[in-house]
């Protein structure tokens, strides 16, 4: 079974530039998560989708971050414009779904973003 795919694996940009990350979850997984993990900290949930609907985006900085999952499968996360403090690893995870019960999350390899 293929795992969660993410691209690119690494990205270096200058502040005020834009960047986009892509995630393809495990086939059949309804729930998709985007996390931001700053060096030395645990992952912070940015947004959670159930199919193509948003379940929670309370920690997403909506003035610069946006995410979509239009067809309920793959997803993109965009930062526009980037700031120095956005330097982090962006992790995508997916699970079977079913909001009433926890299903194991499977994480992708992450995208390491460096903002100069």
């Amino acid at each position: 079974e293929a795992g969660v795919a993410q691209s690119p694996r690494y990205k270096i940009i200058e502040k005020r530039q834009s960047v986009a990350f892509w995630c393809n979850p495990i086939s059949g997984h309804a729930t998709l998560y985007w996390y931001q993990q700053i060096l030395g900290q645990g992952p912070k949930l940015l947004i959670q989708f159930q199919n193509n609907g948003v379940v929670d985006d309370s920690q997403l900085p909506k003035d610069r971050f946006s995410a979509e999952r239009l067809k309920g499968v793959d997803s993109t996360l965009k930062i526009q414009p980037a700031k120095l403090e956005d330097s982090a690893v962006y992790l995508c995870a997916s699970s079977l779904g079913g909001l009433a019960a926890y299903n194991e999350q499977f994480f992708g390899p992450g995208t390491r973003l460096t903002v100069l």
Partner: protein
Amino acid sequence: EDKVVQSPLSLVVHEGDTVTLNCSYEVTNFRSLLWYKQEKKAPTFLFMLTSSGIEKKSGRLSSILDKKELFSILNITATQTGDSAIYLCAAASGGGSYIPTFGRGTSLIVHP
């Protein structure tokens, strides 16, 4: 604000030692406590705990939850160099969904 605190932040031991990692949490609408192992980048799932006092085991790893005192421990016995990793604890909350809040993790280094 939901909060998860892990201790110690780092730990260095020798092969064969036993270690105990701690996780305390304060979240609204608590649903379950999760442990992950993170090597390099992607965390991998270890345990999910929802009931107090019931130990979960997987090989040399075991974990237990105390919902009254709001903490969990992860034990690793007879540590091996392959156990070197960051161990993350997360408290999942939410009325109709699972919203996880992660701690900063405990960095475990096991020397041969």
